[in-house]
């Protein structure tokens, strides 16, 4: 167990290192305008001095070494355009908690909505809930989220009277963004839970239980649901990735002062150091999510042996 975890962490660290290096080198290919607040007004001498000062004139490997050394000191550099000269870590430390809170609430909401929906779909096979759920799932998975988010915002504010823009202290402004963010994952959970439950219901032990005269509700809750829930755990990391990419769009749509909206902002303003830092942070979230998902599986279902999983790879 410990050996597996250590190995898993080692691979992830290596992955992280590769990703950081690749992102770093790629961002170096950007035009240098992205390092200056007012590039057009500067003369060549100032530009050169600034590039020198930032170390952008050094060979790429030296830059890379400097970058990692600074990273180990917890320094991601300074913003060049978004808010000039402020350390990026400070900006992010200011914005991240809101994004995290919103993401966690929306993931909880999607579990809360998706699991009953999936269970209802499996129980009423080809009944109302099944049809309703299928239409919902097809719609959410097929239509680009960017499109229905816009309509949710518009109808939510014009018909239901929710505020269009986010404000931290007004709980009503949380409803629309959190709800939109959870839709994709709700459909995802419902789809998989339904599939696993239908598979489980066709198994022999369920038939036996039914033949014995066990109540239907008891079979569903005690056997089918519990057994189908375990494989669902592996979708939590994926759904974390969904939430992350959803948050980029939604935070900017509702002007939520979080990290996702920040990414869109710094992209439009072409702030190279900020883009680099945020892209790196988002990649890390992905990796951490994957590790957590793998570990969660082991913790929740003791039947899963990690040895077997390794040899299957």
């Amino acid at each position: 167990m410990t050996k597996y975890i250590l190995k898993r962490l080692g691979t992830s660290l290596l992955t992280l290192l590769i990703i950081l290096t690749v992102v770093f080198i790629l961002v170096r290919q950007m035009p240098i305008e992205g390092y200056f607040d007012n590039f057009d007004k500067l003369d060549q001498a100032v530009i050169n001095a600034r590039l020198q000062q930032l170390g952008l004139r050094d060979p790429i490997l030296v830059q890379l070494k400097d970058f990692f050394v600074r990273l180990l000191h917890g320094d991601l550099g300074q913003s060049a355009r978004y808010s000039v000269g402020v350390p990026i870590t400070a900006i992010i430390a200011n914005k991240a908690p809101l994004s995290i809170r919103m993401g966690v609430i929306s993931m909880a909401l999607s579990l809360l909505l998706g699991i009953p929906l999936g269970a209802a779909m499996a129980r009423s096979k080809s009944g109302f809930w099944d049809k309703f759920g299928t239409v919902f799932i097809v719609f959410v998975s097929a239509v680009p989220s960017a499109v229905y988010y816009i309509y949710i915002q518009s109808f939510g504010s014009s018909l239901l009277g929710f505020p269009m823009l986010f404000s931290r202290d007004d709980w009503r402004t949380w409803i629309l963004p959190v709800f939109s963010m959870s839709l994709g994952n709700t459909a995802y959970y419902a789809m998989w839970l339904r599939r696993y439950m239908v598979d489980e219901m066709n198994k022999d032990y369920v038939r036996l239980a039914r033949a014995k005269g066990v109540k239907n509700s008891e079979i569903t809750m005690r056997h089918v649901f519990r057994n189908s829930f375990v494989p669902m755990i592996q979708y939590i990391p994926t759904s974390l990735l969904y939430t992350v990419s959803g948050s980029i769009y939604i935070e900017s749509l509702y002007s939520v002062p979080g990290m996702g909206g920040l990414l869109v902002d710094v992209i439009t303003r072409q702030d190279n150091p900020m883009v680099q830092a945020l892209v790196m942070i988002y990649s890390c979230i992905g990796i951490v999510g994957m590790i957590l998902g793998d570990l969660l599986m082991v913790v929740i279902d003791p039947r899963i042996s990690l040895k077997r999983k390794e040899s299957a790879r």
Partner: protein
Amino acid sequence: MKLFKRPKDQIAAPLEQGVSAEIARLVTDADFVVAPYNPDEGERGGYSNYSYWGSTFRSFFKDKVALVFLITLVALLLFTIIQPLLPQQFEANVIIDHPLTKRQMSNVAPAWTNVIVEAPAGTALVVHPFDNDLWAAVDNIVASVKARKEFTVLEYGDEWCRIAYDGAEGYVRNDFTTKIKFPEDPLATPYAAKSNFALNVYTTPADMSNKGDALFVLKRQLAIDGDTAVTTERAQLRLLPDTRPFLFGTNSAGQDLWAKVWSGTRTSLFIGVTVAALQSLIGILIGVLWGYVKALDRLLTEIYNVIDNIPTTIVLILVSYIMRPSVQTLILAMTVTGWVGMARFVRNQVVIIRDRDYNLASRCLGNSTARIITRNLLPYLVSVIMLRLALAVPGAIGSEVFITYIGLGLPLSVPSLGNLINEGRKMISTSQSYQLVFPTIILSVITIAFYIIGNAFADAADPKNHL
């Protein structure tokens, strides 16, 4: 040639002849004609006329919903291709100006025709100078009353009032747009009145102008006398000296949305289909190598773990950020991440069937690896490859919308569903919301159709569902 016959042969020869004569009598050529298929006989002999593709298509066509979407999608695809060839189309990027005022025809509401109003025979019109053989620029505004100027009301009506002003006589609107201040008893005409707004005085109680600008009518329907004219027959007054309608209206820049939407659909479909094709090509190639060549397994698995850990959106953003926005950039950005899923899938399937006996036999018979892969392995994967292809198209179209939203998408001169939706988004709570609605409808139909067809086809192609 034998020199002498053995006694054994002397006995055998006639016997042999007898037997072959008997066989020739019993077995005729008619016995070797292919019999028609007979299910009862087939069952007895364990034969079935099962054909994989036949069954696949049969079960696919049983799915009515998928069939409807297939027909819709094919019709839509054909239409996007032939739309520019149809008569009466605008160019997607041409800004349409009013021929007289040179103002952009922005935010024109969608309509079946560009006829704004029909003038009955005998309507008096004002002709504006417009150099055209076929069309005349007209309206029925004889004068305009400046704001807060006094005029004489000759006749009062709930919607239109007849007034006299500065030697001209005509009708003005009486509604919230004009807010004329009337005395206590408005019916006791004539009296003086005024409004806080500028008023147009029309020859008839009808507005025959494009918000004060001239409309266009065929010259042969008019009796022109200097700068006035009278319609000689029932005449249609049009928005432009042209019969082309703005079916989807125009956008705020004055471009025809119908042309833009179809042009955008072409761009988005092109991106979607190209990305899907490239993803499958690279995915299949790498997936087969990954699964079949054991020496590569370790390396490719590690590469996969690295790529799979990064959110796709982030890679998409990074690649589009670094490169100049263009169709090629978008295709590259989506292909960079998209092949991974396909490759892993193909790899898993290949690993499962690689060492089956028939592949072993095939190798023992001396078939090359390439032949084993293309003949023995890939046909197994067709159904799922098709599914992933079908799902990659809506995925790519959706990514395009997303990338455009965050400001890294195509420039407005290259219409795509992404930038049309992004532009229309700004209009959502105004009366111009059609600028968002039309692109979203087309986009949703395309993506839902691909999704449903893909899933239905994958179900149909799964031999477990063939009965």
